[in-house]
């Protein structure tokens, strides 16, 4: 296998993501029910969707990277490093130490800054621009939330739908698995998994996925048990549809609303969990959780350094709030139990 450098992977992921998004949009536009749901969602939570979209834009801007084109005298950048669009916007913004937002001089010591007045949110202890770090955190947060949900939901669906549809031995096995996972403290299991796999974005995502699929697995199993007995599944069988096709064409599409709702709700949960892991020292590099964790000491300084934790906290808060608002509306729009009668 060819060895790719990280920025190639990152660019590939961007392309893949854009292709997937286009596919999703085309699917939603083709199917009238989904199209109507999407329109209603847009009408209900316009601002929240725009906010989430902004975070995604920042994440994308930070994912498109290439090498070269770095000014030779730039401080704190290796000449041969691959830099993203975002990195390039903030290249050569490094200072020596703390500075307050819009300051001309260092916060402690009072020495003049290299680029006075240009740091919107000040700099941190190593002189890195806080706005830059905060924006960079968006990509990490989206990666954690998205990748983990993409790992956990198929896992849960596989076991849940399988157990619900086929029952018997497989059902027993899945419940055994669920019982084992449920009888271990989640945080300890997370730490153990990350320790075993080694710290890193992927291992954190995998660990979070392993500890979070159980709930949706139960839900999808119960829902499958219900759908399995419905007349249209029997009718499909009477038409000669195979078991695999019944699952793909009849069971899963009727779970779709649950999948979308779970995805959105899981997403914010995972971003928050990562903050907890960062606090325990096993988070993902460059995450808001790490920024908040790193700012613990700064809160005890005199005078206090507030912009670091403030920026990371607000960015985290904004994303979670927006995603939850969207998730809440998604549930209202898609969940048949809360469905309002059409006027």
């Amino acid at each position, binding site marked *: 296998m060819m060895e790719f450098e990280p920025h190639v992977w990152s660019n590939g992921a961007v392309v893949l993501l854009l292709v997937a998004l286009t596919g999703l949009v085309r699917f939603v536009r083709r199917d*009238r029910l989904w199209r109507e749901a999407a329109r209603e969602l847009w009408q209900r939570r316009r601002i929240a969707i725009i906010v989430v979209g902004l975070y995604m834009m920042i994440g994308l801007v930070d994912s498109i990277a290439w090498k070269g084109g770095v000014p030779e005298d730039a401080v704190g950048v290796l000449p041969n490093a691959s830099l993203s669009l975002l990195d390039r916007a903030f290249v050569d913004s490094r200072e020596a130490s703390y500075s307050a937002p819009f300051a001309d001089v260092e916060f402690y010591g009072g020495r003049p800054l290299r680029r006075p007045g240009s740091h919107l949110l000040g700099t941190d202890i190593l002189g890195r621009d806080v706005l830059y770090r905060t924006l960079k955190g968006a990509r990490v947060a989206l990666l954690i939330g998205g990748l983990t949900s993409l790992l956990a939901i198929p896992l849960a669906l596989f076991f849940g739908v399988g157990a619900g549809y086929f029952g018997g031995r497989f059902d027993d096995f899945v419940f055994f698995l669920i019982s084992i996972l449920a009888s271990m403290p989640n945080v300890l299991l997370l730490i153990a998994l990350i320790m075993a796999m080694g710290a890193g974005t992927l291992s954190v995502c995998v660990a979070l996925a392993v500890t979070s699929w159980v709930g949706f697995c139960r839900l999808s199993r119960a829902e499958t048990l219900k759908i399995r*007995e419905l007349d249209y599944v029997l*009718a499909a*069988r009477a*038409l*000669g549809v195979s078991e695999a096709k019944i699952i793909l064409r009849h069971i899963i*599409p009727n779970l779709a609303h649950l999948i979308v709702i779970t995805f959105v709700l899981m997403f914010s949960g995972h971003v928050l969990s990562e903050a907890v892991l960062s606090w325990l020292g096993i988070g993902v590099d460059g995450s808001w959780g790490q920024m908040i964790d790193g700012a613990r000491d700064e809160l005890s300084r005199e005078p206090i350094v507030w912009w670091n934790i403030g920026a990371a906290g607000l960015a985290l808060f904004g994303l979670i709030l927006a995603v939850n608002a969207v998730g809440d509306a998604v549930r209202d729009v898609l969940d048949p139990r809360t469905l309002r009668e059409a006027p």
Partner: protein
Amino acid sequence: MSALLEVRNLRTCFPGKDGPLPVVDGVSFDLNRGEVLALVGESGCGKSMTAFSTLRLVPKPGRVTDGSVVFDGVDLLELPVTQMRTIRGSRIAMIFQEPMTCLNPVVSVGRQVVEAIRLHEPITKGEAMSRVRDLFGEVGIPDPEARLGAYPHELSGGLKQRVMIAMALSTRPEILIADEPTTSLDVTVQAQILELLRELQRERNTAILLITHDLGIVNEIADRVAVMYAGRLVESAPREALFSNPLHPYSQGLLRSMPARSRPGQPLPEIEGVVPSPDQWPTGCRFSTRCPVRFEPCADIFPNETRVENERTVWCHEVERNLGGEGAG
């Protein structure tokens, strides 16, 4: 000429507290090409289970334990699952009682029928779609073009049943099993659907196995009638013969209790008692607990199959005794 579908001694059991309960117990009948056979009986007499058993669709934990279902020379009960699948839907199709819940709610009805066709025939989506359009017109769906993209919840019960019928007929099956196809529809729609079924049956020469408890429907559409009681056939006869001269006491009771045949001002006659549940079925004639003319052997010995006339069979000691007296032998 042998029949298209020959069901022999079919037995379907569900596990019970004291061993398996045979909800269908030794049912035999023939279905000829282009014929409408009505399977009649009260709720719970096993008529739907008989239909499910012929297609091997008995819900778990039930199981067909005995008998044979010979379709066009092949015993369906012996076929491997994959071959059974190719027969279901393509050569034997089924429509159900509840059109409300028989369609997948998240797929448009046009696509559902397209998929049903493409399951058994290698044609393109476009070809299938134009065929569905024709089919929709044929089963009397107004404005078929616009209905193709409709979702089940946007259609009325009658329209949904028409879609189900279109789906069942999409592959030109030789047999259509209709399990109470009109029960959940209102009376005017019932008549339309029956008319439609009869028309399609005549045009396409499809054999129909009609499961129903409504003797009015039977009288309108059936060629032959098989009366079922508590998991067993009690009488099988051509429609005119049965309606003019029912032989089995149960058939007599059923016909007497038809509202259309009762006299105005008189209370509607009924059959005394209730159907016993499968674990309380008598060893002899199943109807012996309610039969007005029962005598000594009825409760203990199951009556033999008595061939009365051509195409007419009864399982009853009383009939047997009377015929024996005449020396028909």
